[in-house]
């Protein structure tokens, strides 16, 4: 039995896995202590749970638990990593580098640093969404102190060459930060081999609860940060504030499950995604956005030419999808990520992001493919542009009258 709306927006957020919720509940009821309380068992029990979760998070990315700092989410992690490192190393230089296709949490943080006197370079990406290593090499200067590149893009799912970027940054003595919010449980992350200094994580993109994230801070070679939140000195002074034990326990359990199940799960999801891809590729004038080989198996981002994205989303409202990132979905601007790929406004406007997850069934994918075919045919029947296109008119040569 299908349940509507079908959720195909796992990159916006995921449900908490029932096993994760089970593990969280005792810490919402009888085990409610403040992990900073050192004078009684309520506190010790909470602290032990926090440390167990820290070990689980570290294990997924092959890091030392001491390198994991709890935060309220990936947005805070990105802010802490970027501002914290830029401020700490500002004596060495004030140039910072990122990509135009990063998440707002990185881009807005860069803008904030620009206001504070830093100089930022926002690199273009190639048509496939991947970083151009030559451009990156050229962008690096003597006073570059930080490079921030996301592991997996939230809109198009492409995987950036973190190994190469890490080698480059390390050879130049530049701090390298990676936003891995969309990567955990989807790609194998090995921080023992990757030359990454700082890495941001989120629980709620990997079947954990919202409101909790982490920042990996490398110890060898040691990376230093200026704290952004001050107070009781929690998290070795890097992030003050009472730890939300149940959320931390949830993140630990979510990452433990991811470690154990990701290999099999990603194969199942890849099968569903490929089926969806095959199902839409026989729709005329559909264009996949972003590289298909260097991509997480969960993501399919397609532009359906001659259809307005918002109308299409309304037409297929039995399926919960998005036209881009959830954080920018209030705006009607076309996706800046797709624009950076060189897509026209029209194609960027007609894009849909499908993201598949743990609870997606084959039946749901079949239904979605059928629905897309039906609704696209209908919408295009109503579209004068589609009619002109079918009549062979080159729309680029049409002189539109201004109103």
């Amino acid at each position, binding site marked *: 039995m299908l349940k509507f709306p079908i959720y195909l927006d796992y990159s916006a957020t995921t449900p908490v896995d029932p096993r994760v919720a089970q593990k969280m509940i005792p810490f919402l009821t009888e085990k409610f202590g403040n992990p900073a309380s050192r004078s009684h068992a309520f506190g010790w029990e909470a602290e032990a749970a926090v440390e167990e979760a820290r070990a689980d998070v570290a294990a997924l990315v092959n890091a030392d638990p001491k390198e994991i700092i709890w935060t309220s989410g990936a947005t805070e992690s990105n802010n802490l990593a970027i501002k914290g490192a830029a401020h700490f190393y500002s004596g060495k230089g004030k140039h910072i580098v990122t990509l135009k296709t990063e998440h707002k949490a990185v881009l*807005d943080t860069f803008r904030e640093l620009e206001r504070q006197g830093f100089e930022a370079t926002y690199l273009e990406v190639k048509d496939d969404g991947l970083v151009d290593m030559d451009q990156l090499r050229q962008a690096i200067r003597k006073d570059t102190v930080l490079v921030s590149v996301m592991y997996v893009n939230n809109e198009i799912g492409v995987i950036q060459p973190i190994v190469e970027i890490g080698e480059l940054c390390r050879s130049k003595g530049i701090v390298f930060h990676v936003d891995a919010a969309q990567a955990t449980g989807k790609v194998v992350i090995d921080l023992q081999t990757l030359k990454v200094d700082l890495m941001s994580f989120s629980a709620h993109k990997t079947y954990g609860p919202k409101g909790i994230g982490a920042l990996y801070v490398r110890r060898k070679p040691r990376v230093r940060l200026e704290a952004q939140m001050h107070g009781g000195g929690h998290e070795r002074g890097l992030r003050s504030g*009472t730890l939300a034990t149940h959320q931390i326990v949830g993140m630990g359990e979510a990452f433990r499950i991811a470690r154990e199940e990701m290999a099999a799960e990603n194969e199942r999801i890849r099968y569903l995604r490929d089926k969806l891809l095959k199902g839409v590729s026989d729709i005329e004038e559909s264009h996949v956005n972003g590289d298909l080989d260097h991509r997480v198996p969960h993501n399919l981002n397609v532009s359906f030419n001659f259809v307005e994205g918002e109308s299409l989303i309304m037409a297929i409202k039995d399926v919960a999808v998005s036209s881009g990132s959830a*954080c920018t979905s209030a705006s009607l601007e076309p996706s800046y990520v797709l624009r950076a790929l060189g897509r026209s406004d029209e194609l960027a406007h007609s894009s849909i992001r499908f993201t598949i997850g743990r609870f997606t069934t084959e039946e749901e994918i079949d239904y979605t493919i059928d629905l897309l075919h039906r609704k696209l045919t209908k919408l295009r029947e109503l579209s004068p542009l589609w009619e002109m296109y079918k009549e062979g008119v080159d729309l680029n040569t049409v002189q539109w009258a201004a109103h």
Partner: protein
Amino acid sequence: MFAPVYFDHNATTPLDPRVLEAMLPYLTQRFGNASSRHEYGRAARRAVDEARQQVAAAVGAHATEVVFCSGGSEANNLFVKGAAASMRPATIAISAIEHPCVREPARQLVREGWRLHEIPVDAEGRLDMAEYAQVLASPAKIVSVMLANNETGVLQYVPALAARARGARAWFHSDAVQALGKIKVDFRALGVHALTLSAHKLNGPQGAAALVIDKRIELRPLIAGGGQERGLRSGTENVAAIVGFGRACELAAAALDANASRLNSMRRTLERGLSNLGARVFGAAAERLPNTTLFSLEGMDGETLVAQLDRAGFAVASGAACSSASPEPSHTLLAMGVATEIARGAVRISLGRGNTGDEVERFLRTFADLVQHLKRMTAMAV
């Protein structure tokens, strides 16, 4: 099973089962991202909006004045640093007994050219009004004085302090984390520009808090990103915890008077018993929260008492939870002029909704035996 009695509600409180019930659907079924425009997202948005109304109603504020964030520490950092970042360096005044999450951000500002005044308190823990007036006239641009102290429970007379600050054109913030749910907290009656609230001190979940802020106050955000919370706090909303926060506020407001008088009566019993044993209760002559008792017994070490009490089945604290890793004596007591050795002996009992009069009686009997025992040990050692 042996369940210890929890007397450390100023550190954190157990979640009310009705709050848990409100939260659970938002973990599993109604799990949407509040920024998504499909039905999953819209359901999450509605829940966040409803919680915003509940929190606002509990403190007599307007829903649009509530900015959700991850905790009281973040809310205090947001106000202190955010307000400072929106103006030229000037003077910031805080009380000498603020929580570290106000004091430390204020100290950070000194590096950016701000002058910091830490206004002293008297022997009962009340702000020195003469010095306050002087600092305001200096002039101070930002003032932060907590409504209720986390260690002693002593209340500051915030309406008068805030009125004076307004007269001096300073922005006045109060950390009301410990006060919410224990005494009436009214944003308008207090007359403050900003107020910090936290869910986990009033039987709500850890991980949700709010800065209630007058919209005329300009703040620069601490966390940049997707522009949530009117751009003042980016990051995907922690829907389940926010829903829990809203429900906890609603429940606490409804039971406020009954709860306060129950706590007060239990605490009277407790303090009478402690006085009979020769204990000194700090801030006893000042107006205090109805649930908090900070005391010491001459010649007794606080850490020892707390450890013994834990063994005897009573969870109490020797100071604030966040600094309980450090062996430093309470900075609140030192600011009150209490000698270091006596401050080291301090024990905090903070009662909560779940406690009973019977637990207080049992505690007093246990504590009397314990003190007898420790005194005998000390006598033998001498």
